[in-house]
């Protein structure tokens, strides 16, 4: 087995995102104050309070369950959280800190989801599954929901290994194709009476960014002719309440903007599976150009039809190009853009390029 040496997402960060999905209002990271700094700051924009136990060398040497317990109590006094998420870090887990004991000592065990993961626990999905397992033990989610999510996460992990950025030892960064050129291609396709299929196959809140393409494509189609087919993983009946509400919100905005969804391919947290459904539908009736956004590598239609893949991160984009998608656009940082208490569709780079090109 070859080692993947480029930076990878962390199980600790994945655990924190999952705690947010479970509507934990405060997350305590038992670790040094800089651990997972960026995800922590992003989650704060989503209305979750994130604090750390600010471990220092002394705490590592002497142990710090007592300190953690005090931090938990303090957090309870300061923020009166309904549900606390408590996650480990490399430092605290390696010295064998007992998160549950600290929560019990603080008298807060009944409202604290404890998650024993650290940076070296494995795939990032390990962190998400650990949180969900704890949530099930606490009766916060059902067995069915746990099993469904675990299945999805395991599929996602496999997808990353087979077709994602975990598939090779090192992937170079690459900025992607120029959005203006792709916008031109899209307009040409519409203007010549062709069909563009738009596939939204995004993960949770990042859908608020990728969904913008549907708005831009629909308005370009109205202006230049041709046809547009929309496939989206926006089933409002699947997933945790928070995640379902995203689908509802996006579908409402689609309706207001005159975007018709032709096929719902699955739920917003089902991208490994919904990607396969989207593939089936596209292959059965190939469009002239398929625009696949979010997690395009879950929709394996490269080589079968002309494709535009839209994703985030210069490494993911580089990977998509080498998989064989014809054009690849790097979007704005989807988490950065779409986290925030007021959830609404956000302007995307390709969407804007298309609007500008159409205005010429």
């Amino acid at each position: 087995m070859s080692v993947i040496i480029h930076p990878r997402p962390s199980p600790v960060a994945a655990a924190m995102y999952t705690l947010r999905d479970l509507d934990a209002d405060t997350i305590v990271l038992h670790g040094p104050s800089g651990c997972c700094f960026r995800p922590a700051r992003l989650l704060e924009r989503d209305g979750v309070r994130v604090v750390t136990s600010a471990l220092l060398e002394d705490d590592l040497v002497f142990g710090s369950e007592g300190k953690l317990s005090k931090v938990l109590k303090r957090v309870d006094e300061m923020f009166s959280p309904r549900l606390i998420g408590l996650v480990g870090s490399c430092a605290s887990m390696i010295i064998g800190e007992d998160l549950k004991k600290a929560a019990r000592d603080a008298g807060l065990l009944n409202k604290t989801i404890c998650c024993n993961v650290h940076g070296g626990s494995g795939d990032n999905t390990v962190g998400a599954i650990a949180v969900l397992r704890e949530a099930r033990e606490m009766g916060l989610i059902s067995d069915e929901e746990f099993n469904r999510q675990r299945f999805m996460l395991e599929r996602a992990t496999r997808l990353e290994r087979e077709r994602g950025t975990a598939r090779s030892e090192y992937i170079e960064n690459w900025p992607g194709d120029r959005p203006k050129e792709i916008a031109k291609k899209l307009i040409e396709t519409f203007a010549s009476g062709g069909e563009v299929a738009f596939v939204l196959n995004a993960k949770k809140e990042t859908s608020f960014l990728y969904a913008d393409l549907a708005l831009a494509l629909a308005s370009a189609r109205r202006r230049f002719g041709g046809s547009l087919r929309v496939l989206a993983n926006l089933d409002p009946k699947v997933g945790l309440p928070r995640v379902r509400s995203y689908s509802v919100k996006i579908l409402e905005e689609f309706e207001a903007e005159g975007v018709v969804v032709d096929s719902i391919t699955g739920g917003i947290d089902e991208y490994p599976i919904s990607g396969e459904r989207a593939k089936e539908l596209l292959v059965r009736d190939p469009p002239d150009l398929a625009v696949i956004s979010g997690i395009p590598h879950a929709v394996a239609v490269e080589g079968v039809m002309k494709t535009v893949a839209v994703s985030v991160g210069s490494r993911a984009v580089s990977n998509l190009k080498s998989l064989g998608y014809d054009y690849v656009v790097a979007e704005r940082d989807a988490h950065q853009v779409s986290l925030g208490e007021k959830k609404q569709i956000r302007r995307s780079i390709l969407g804007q390029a298309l609007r500008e090109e159409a205005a010429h």
Partner: protein
Amino acid sequence: MKSVAFYGKGGIGKSTLASNIAAALGADGLKILLVGCDPKADSTINLLGRRPPQLLELMKQEKRPDPSKFIEEGFAGVACVEIGGPEPGVGCAGRGLIVGIRYLTEVFDIRRFDLVIFDVPADIVCGGLAVVMKEGYSESALIVTSDEFMSLYAANNLCRGFRSLGARVGGVLYNRSTTGGRRYVGRFSSRVGVPILGDVPLSEELIRADRARKTIIESSPASNLSGIISSVAKSVYLNSFSCVPNWIQIEELEEMCAGDS
């Protein structure tokens, strides 16, 4: 300056030999530093008559404590330091040792001593406990063993660890020696390529001195045992041999010890 680190199976007599050897050499007028590296901080009790303040505890309180606060002079002028560490069952003693030794050698010039002795807890169970050898604070290790199988087993494991670290061993100290057992330790020593620097017999006297929290050198300087320990101490101090040791496959070790029982 010379430096040695005592390693060996738990409870085999590392701290007893380290403090007695320090006392004997101190009594001969040499400048000795004994650094206790065990979180239970019991290496220097018999030289000081009590437990001294522990370096890591002080570092926790005041970050950069002055050496005068954690270096105390014990019997025969031996300078004593206890690194200390966490309570049993929490934190990370290995990390503590790394942090403590680095600080000690940063703020205190240990080269001013004739001999520095590090008394390290039991086997090298983690990277931290190997720091004394790995980062070169001690020139060589001494392996304390008795003639019991489990003690030789631990000694062999240590040799294996030292071999993989590329660390040097200066000799074997044969503790609780018995007339019938010497051949086992002798075979072990020749197989791993490390000489026996001396042996200290199993002795009631040592245990009594221990109860009085004294070294035998202090409590009965004229005793036979004091003489034996003093001569072992001299061999330790004068020893100039060291090598990266060999180690033995477990089957061979078993055979070696089962031989003529």
